[in-house]
C-alpha cells in the first residue's frame, strides 16, 4: 500500500470512529415517569460510559430525555422501571448511535422490551442537533411502533418534540 493509500485509509478510519470516541456521556435517569418514554436511548451502558469518556473530561455531559417518549395508551401499560430503562436507552441512542442502529431495553420483571433506532440526523435552523427515531415497544406479545423526533438541548439532554 502506498503512503497515499495509507493516508486515505487513516482518514477514513479516523473519521469513521468518532461515534466511539464521542461516547462521552454520563447519564442521569429521570424519576419523572412522564420523561421516561419521552426519551430515546442507546447502546453503551453504565460502566462502558466511563471508559468511553476518556480523554476529555470537559466533554462529558449529562444526558437525559425530556418529553413524552411514549405516551397515551402504551405508556399506561409500562411501569416506572420500563420507562426508566426506555429513557436511559433512548438517551444513549440519541447521543451515540448511528442512523439505523437500534438499541434495546428489556425489563425482566415485566417482560416488556423496546428498541429505539435513530433514523435521521439533522441540524435545526437554530443549530440544534435533532434525530428522528423509530421506537418499537413489545408489551406482552403485542408490538407497538411509534415515530418521533428528539432534539439535543444545550445541557446535553434530549427533548422529544411534540
Amino acid at each position: 500500500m502506498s503512503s497515499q493509500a495509507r493516508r486515505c485509509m487513516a482518514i477514513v478510519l479516523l473519521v469513521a470512529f468518532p461515534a466511539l470516541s464521542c461516547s462521552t456521556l454520563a447519564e442521569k435517569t429521570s424519576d419523572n415517569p412522564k420523561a421516561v418514554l419521552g426519551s430515546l436511548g442507546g447502546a453503551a451502558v453504565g460502566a462502558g460510559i466511563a471508559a468511553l469518556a476518556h480523554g476529555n473530561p470537559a466533554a462529558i455531559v449529562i444526558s437525559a430525555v425530556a418529553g413524552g417518549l411514549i405516551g397515551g395508551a402504551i405508556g399506561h401499560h409500562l411501569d416506572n422501571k420500563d420507562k426508566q430503562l426506555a429513557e436511559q436507552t433512548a438517551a444513549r441512542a440519541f447521543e451515540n448511535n448511528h442512523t439505523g442502529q437500534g438499541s434495546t431495553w428489556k425489563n425482566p420483571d415485566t417482560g416488556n422490551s423496546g428498541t429505539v433506532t435513530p433514523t435521521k440526523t439533522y441540524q435545526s435552523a437554530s443549530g440544534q442537533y435533532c434525530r428522528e427515531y423509530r421506537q418499537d415497544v413489545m408489551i406482552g406479545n403485542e408490538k407497538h411502533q411509534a415515530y418521533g423526533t428528539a432534539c439535543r438541548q444545550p445541557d446535553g439532554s434530549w427533548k422529544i418534540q411534540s
Partner: protein
Amino acid sequence: MRRTIVRFVLAAVLALAAAPALGKEPAPAHDPRVAFAETDQNKDGRVDREEFHLRIVEVFFHGDRDKDGYMTTEELTSVVVFPEDFADADRDEDGRISLYEFVRIRSATFDEVDGDKDGFLSVDEVVAAYEVRD
C-alpha cells in the same frame, strides 16, 4: 487536487463504514463496499445525493464531540488525520467548521466521483475512486 477530492469523497462515503455499533465488532473499515451498502439506505444499489448528504451530516454529528454544532481544530484533529485538508472549509475563518462548511466541502466531491454523471454513485464508482489512491 484530484487525490484530495477522492479523499474527501471516500471520507464522506466511507466514514462510519467502520463505525461499529457500540459493543459490537467493527466492520471492515477498508472495504468500500461495506461503506457503500451502509450509505445506500434504501438499498437500491446506488447512492443518491440525499443519501450522500445524510451520511455527511452523520459524520459531522459524531465528530462534533461536544455537540456545540461546530468542529473545532481539536475535534478535527482527533477524527481526521490531516486537518489541513479542511483549511479551505473554514470560509468565515472563525477557527471552526460549521456543518454548512463541512457539507459544502464534502458535497462538492459528489460529481467528481460520479463518473457517468447520472446523478448517482454506484458501488463501482466508489470502489474505483478508492483504488485511485493505490
